[in-house]
């Protein structure tokens, strides 16, 4: 709290002046022959009656204090504009598909990010970094909320692994010239090292409710080979790919995504029977096909998991992303301080309050509560 007119505090001298006047008035002296009778009569006064002069004095002093406060024009907030820069780092990696947090980790993280965004001050700047595969800046630092809201709304969880720590470092770099900048990380897991940050403050909200590791598995078979012998009479070089999976846990849902040349070609849910499931996909020769899975419980590949191209089996050369997301516990985003606009002097409130107190004192005087 600061004061617009602190010199008005001299008005507080009115209180001792009033006290002196009160004492002077008190000194009106009269010769009494029956002081002993007065003492007896006054000794029968109630406690409230004895306190009443002090209550009156306190009441009137309160009016003076409030008037002085009103003249001093207190400012109950910052006197100057204070802005902060925020970088939202949204984890949209493979592991965020897990559904141990309803509806999914990613959806929960996105909602939290939207909520945090709504709390920012009107002059605060914000940026959005989405971590899906390589971290990328979706929205640079801006005061405009709309692109941030649109970006948050349109971003979906990726099927790639990513590096949140690298994203945090990138955010720290963005905030290099923004003292007091804040990095808000929405992820399934807090980054291991925070000491690398230069000046920015890192606040992490985690979204995971699994006591054990959550299996989110990505299988990929690179470059479907061309078989001249079998493809010679075949006008359509399409090949049916078969992926077989074995689960060891009890996943509620396992999602599977087929990517052809890094583009999502199809999505389907795996139906496990006796712990096994099979997924089919038609791909062309020469395509770069990837299969990605997300489950919310222990999940392991069958030793013989493979992509089958017709009769030819192609062993997975790359098995990405097993155990990319570990167990964890959800933690909400800690409270953070946003930028503030300058507060207006609250002198009107104090004037109003002084008027009310004065009216109250006057009414109390009329009904005989004070004197």
């Amino acid at each position: 709290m600061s004061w617009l007119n602190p010199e008005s505090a001299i008005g507080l001298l009115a209180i001792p002046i009033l006290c002196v006047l009160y004492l002077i008035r008190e000194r009106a002296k009269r010769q009494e022959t029956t002081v002993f009778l007065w003492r007896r009569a006054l000794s029968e006064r109630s406690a409230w009656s004895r306190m009443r002069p002090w209550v009156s004095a306190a009441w009137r002093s309160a009016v003076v204090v409030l008037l002085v406060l009103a003249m001093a024009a207190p400012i109950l907030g910052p006197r100057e504009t204070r802005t902060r820069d925020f970088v939202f780092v949204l984890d949209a990696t493979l592991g965020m598909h897990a559904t141990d947090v309803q509806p999914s980790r990613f959806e929960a993280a996105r909602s939290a990010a939207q909520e945090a965004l709504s709390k920012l001050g009107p002059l605060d700047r914000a940026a959005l970094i989405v971590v899906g595969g390589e971290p990328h800046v979706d929205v640079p630092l801006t005061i405009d909320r709309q692109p941030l809201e649109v970006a948050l709304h349109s971003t979906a969880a990726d099927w790639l692994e990513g590096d949140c720590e690298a994203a945090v470092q990138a955010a720290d770099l963005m905030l290099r010239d923004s003292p007091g900048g804040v990095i808000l990380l929405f992820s399934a897991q807090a980054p291991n090292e925070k000491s690398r940050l230069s000046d920015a403050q890192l606040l992490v909200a985690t979204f995971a409710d699994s006591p054990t590791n959550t299996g989110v598995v990505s299988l990929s078979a690179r470059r479907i080979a061309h078989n001249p012998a079998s493809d010679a009479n075949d006008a359509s070089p399409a090949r049916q790919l078969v992926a077989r999976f074995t689960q060891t846990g009890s996943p509620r849902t396992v999602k599977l995504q087929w990517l052809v040349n890094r583009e999502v070609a199809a999505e389907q849910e795996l139906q496990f029977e006796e712990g096994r499931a099979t997924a089919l996909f038609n791909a062309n020769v020469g395509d770069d096909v990837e299969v990605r899975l997300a489950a919310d419980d222990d999940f392991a590949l069958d030793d013989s998991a493979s992509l089958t191209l017709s009769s030819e089996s192609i062993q997975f050369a790359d098995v990405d992303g097993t155990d990319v997301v570990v167990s964890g516990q959800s933690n909400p985003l800690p409270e953070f301080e946003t930028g503030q606009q300058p507060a207006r002097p609250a002198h009107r409130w104090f004037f109003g309050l002084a008027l009310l107190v004065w009216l109250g004192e006057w009414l109390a005087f009329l009904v005989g509560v004070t004197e």
Partner: protein
Amino acid sequence: MSRLAEQTLDLSRWLRQTAGLNWRGRWFGERPSHGVQAGIEAADSRDYATGDDLARVDWNRCARLDELVVRQYFGSELRALDIWIDHSPSMNVDDGAKLQWAKRFAALLALQAIDQGETVRIFQVADDCRAIGGVARGRPRLCRLLNQLEASSTSARPLQLAAAARQYLNVVQSGPTLLILSDVFEIESARFVEAFRLLSAAKVNAALIQLHTQAEANPIETGRWKLADVEGGGEQTVTLRDEDLAAYQAEFARYMQGMRRVCHRAGAIWARVPVDAGFDQVVRVLAGTSRLGRAR
């Protein structure tokens, strides 16, 4: 003649005209005597008053002049009227209204008593009892006594009736009539109780006229005050409100009732006189007190 004496004579004339009959009997002349009353020498005669003994009526004169008068005799016992005037500081408030009233009233009674052939002594009372002048008998001595009375001033010491009574009883020969003119504002009620007990034991025929101002009985000023005790010293700062005034009035009334009870137990007359009330009202009060013969 002093101003006090002039006023006294005026009052005396007025008193005779308005309430003279009621004033006789109790405090002057026919009061009970503790000594031998064997007077046979006619001294004077006066108009008959209600209650006079019919045996003393001068029937010859009545038959001759058609006047109903009673004869008065010189007795062997010297009849004396002693008057105490409280000279404590509390009597000097409000420009000495109470003290002035007491002096005027004492002078009036002294004049009446002298006219009745009695001797008069006036005492100045505070924490002691000192005679003002000597024994007055006859008007010339009375005038001198009144001059001395007028010159007397208040004492700086508070009232102590018990001490005064002890000192008084040391010099009193026989049971006189004692009239006490005082406000009796003593903090310790036990002292004036003791004073009246001593007077009663010495068979002093006492009467107390308790003086006060109307402001003392019914104060009306509220607000912040520093009350300075003129008797005991000391000050008390108070904020007086209407309910405090009411409580004080009740306390004052209780105090007066207490004084009345004390006098009643001691067989003394008690009357309460607001000195700043009209004199006729005062006389009416005192006349009523006299007729009843006891405090009310």
